[in-house]
């Protein structure tokens, strides 16, 4: 039942967007001129290629996120049974978390958290 519902919800979202879009396309006017189809940049024609080389200051954060997100994922199964595992489980996880914190500290120290 749950997966049927999951599909239903996804379908709902897609249908909702699709139907509204069709309705909007039916109702809305269309007009054409050359300037309309150019990118907006405060009323000035854009210079150069829009998809030109853009310095991504954020990619380091993406990599860090990937790392930490996967690590925290491992914590979830433990969290569910944390109560029954008791202090012993906690000790194991603290060790794991310690490594995580070490990783963060390393990234911090290396200046990966500094915005470039």
């Amino acid at each position, binding site marked *: *039942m*749950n997966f*049927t*519902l*999951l599909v*239903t*919800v*996804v*379908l*709902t*979202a*897609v249908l*909702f*967007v699709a139907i*509204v*879009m069709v*309705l*909007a*396309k039916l109702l*809305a*006017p*269309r*007009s054409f001129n050359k300037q309309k*189809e*150019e*990118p*907006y*940049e*405060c009323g000035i024609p*854009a210079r150069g290629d*829009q*998809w030109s080389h*853009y310095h*991504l200051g*954020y990619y380091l*954060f*993406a990599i860090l*996120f990937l790392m*930490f*997100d996967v690590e*925290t994922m491992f*914590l*979830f199964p433990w*969290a569910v049974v*944390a*109560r029954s*595992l*008791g*202090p012993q*489980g906690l000790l194991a*996880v*603290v060790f794991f*978390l310690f490594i*995580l*914190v070490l990783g*963060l500290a390393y990234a*911090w120290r290396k200046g990966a*958290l*500094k*915005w470039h």
Partner: protein
Amino acid sequence: MFDFSIITKWFHTLLTGVMPEWLAIGIECLIVLLFIILLYAILAIALIYAERKICAFFQCRLGPNRVGKWGLLQVFADVLKMLTKEIIKLRQTDLLLHDMAPYFVLTASFLTFACIPWNKGLDILDFNVGVFFFIAISGIGVVGILLAGWASHSKYPLIGAMRSGAQLISYELSIGMTMLTVIMLNGTMQFSEIVQQQADFGWNIVRGHVPAVLAFLIYLVAGNAECNRGPFDLPEAESELTAGYHTEYSGMHFGFFYLAEYLNMFICGAMAATIFLGGWAPIYFPGMDGFNAVMGYIPGFIWFFGKAFFVVFLLMWIRWTFPRLRIDQLLSLEWKYLMPLSMINIILMALVVCFGLTL
């Protein structure tokens, strides 16, 4: 507390009594579909209206009051307007991605929306790994926003999308970690179970005392950032990037982003209510039986909406008070303050849980 699953079960048996199983499920799915769309639309309209009115009161203004009584029809007018607005396609955009972006954003929004337990027995998607599922699908929204910015083939949206990419993924970590603390406290990942436990043993924020309150505060900040609002509205940043990642979207295309923004705010509030403030569980004081009984008569969904809207109001209050952060400040807030804090908080909660210190 009234259990809604009685009705759904009764309805199911009623249907299967007169028709084959698959048809019954089909009809139920249709009802669910309509229910979601209706609720989604109503909430969106209510939230947009509330935001305009509340921000007006913060700003010593009146807010919309000409369209309909007290401006109640204002949002309907806006929707009609947006429906009849031209949808612009840029010459050099990646049309497929450009059109796909709203689908992603809305799908993420709908799916997370469906995870919310509205009442006892009234939840649409109730997995036993519910929290996990919730975190996973809320990531789809990021893809939508990134696509929107990238496919627009314009510089402002691109910068906005990149900002939002960095921001959303960063704050997702904190959300995950605060949810981890709650899971530890309740020992389950199923939303309905989490709320049921709160109904039985008291709200999480009380039960988990210090670490839970800490987690709640971290969640508020991170959740606020996740919905691109308040001091964290950098991806849109009206005064810097004109309109951010949806600069090139017009008409209903833009309307979807607008809609999703408000609904995400509600989802953020509803999640806070569910995992910290007891969801549909009524307020309960040990020893005051008369009072508790009266509270118990109030239907669960009213409790739920009351709590969710309280959190939403908090978010609005923050949004209309603080100036915007800068991108590097935003990221260092997450990585240098919230993240270490939530890690410490996990250990704190683990200690509390393992040594049975819960209230």
